[in-house]
């Protein structure tokens, strides 16, 4: 149903003894993972264990407090731009303007990312074709989530970073999302997803609580 993203690179994404600090406090430290093309890694852990923080680090929104993230073997601190050009980040907010129509919302992101023309595909991929002209503010929570996820199909990108992608989705939409993710993986894509729910896909699991900080009195300044 959805489009097949064409994958540009065949290289992996990995973390080496990564540490993260938010609001002056260590969230996790010594975190390692490696993700090869075609692989899914599911992040699990209690609230506050740093799932969203890890995704924001991977998206380049945060800088590591220690360690490094490597894309195709290159440290993100050295080359952030080519990494950013080849990823999609879907946070827990949907980045929608309530007064704009569903199609106009997607169209903006398509044009901003520099690849106009895939709006229809995006809407169809998440089964939103019939709702294109409705203002995003009038859509239900689940429909808004689908519209947020539809950004994944606006342009091809190897790495998908998904924060609780299934929240608010009905069964049909979950299946649709799982299918799209499976196709993405089959084409050599990579997915890093934080979720509490079973995505219906096979992949590795990263338990974030294993990397909770052990330091006694860390930097108190």
């Amino acid at each position, binding site marked *: 149903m959805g489009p097949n993203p064409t994958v540009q690179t065949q290289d992996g994404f990995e973390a080496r003894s990564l540490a993260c600090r938010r609001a002056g406090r260590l969230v996790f430290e010594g975190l390692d993972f490696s993700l090869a093309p075609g692989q899914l890694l599911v992040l699990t852990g209690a609230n506050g264990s740093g799932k969203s923080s890890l995704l924001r680090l991977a998206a380049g929104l945060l800088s590591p407090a220690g360690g490094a993230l490597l894309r195709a073997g290159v440290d993100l601190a050295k080359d952030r731009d080519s990494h950013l050009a080849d990823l999609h980040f879907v946070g827990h907010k949907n*980045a929608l303007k309530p007064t704009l129509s569903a199609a106009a919302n997607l169209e903006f992101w398509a044009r901003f990312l520099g690849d106009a023309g895939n709006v229809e595909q995006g809407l169809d991929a998440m089964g939103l074709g019939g709702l294109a002209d409705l203002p995003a503010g009038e859509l239900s929570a689940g429909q808004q989530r689908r519209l947020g996820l539809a950004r994944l199909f606006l342009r091809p990108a190897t790495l998908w970073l998904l924060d609780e992608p299934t929240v608010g989705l009905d069964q049909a939409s979950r299946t649709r999302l799982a299918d799209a993710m499976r196709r993405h993986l089959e084409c050599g894509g990579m997915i890093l997803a934080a979720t509490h729910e079973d995505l219906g896909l096979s992949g590795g699991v990263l338990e974030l609580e294993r990397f909770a900080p052990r330091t006694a009195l860390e930097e108190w300044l």
Partner: protein
Amino acid sequence: MRSILALLGRDVGLSWAAGGSTRLALAFFALTVTLFPFGVGPGAATLAKVAPGVVWVAALLASMLSLDRMFETDFEDGSLDLLAIGPLPLPLLVLVKTVAHWVSTALPLLVLAPVLAITLQLESTAYPALLASLVIGTPALSFIGAIGAALTTGLRRAGVLLSLIVLPLYVPVLIFATGAVDAARNGFDTAPHLMFLGAVTLVAVVVGCWAAAAALRLHLE
């Protein structure tokens, strides 16, 4: 370039649409100016004397009132994350969003200002100077404002804090702008005033883009 136009179009469009800040800024501007004859009396000589200051202070406040939405709405709905990791470097992003703020709030004021100046009995010789000062000076308001808007993004009580940050920095703009209009009223040369005003605007553009980008980076962390 495509990204810049997309962002500019979206921001200006949202401001002009119902519920946006353009109409509010215009109404506020007109109302504030209208209050002054009630306060200082309807005498033509008094009104003409205070007209440059009144029009400028009202324009300044109208521009300031819409600042709090400059980054705040994008921050709240998650768009700011995606804009920050998009193809535009952060200072350029700030530049585009600030130009959008100027187009959607200051540009309409330019049209309304001469009409309001008529009601304040401003001498006809002062109109070119009034318009020139608004054209040259209002961008400085938007760019200085961007610093305040970025610093207060995501805070409670952002509005009051924003005005406390921004108003002292507006002092030079107000002085040179009203100085030019006053000079024209009294038959003096307006060029020195306008040149200093232009210099203030240039400094505001450079410092504004840098400082607002640095402040936004803080709030993305």
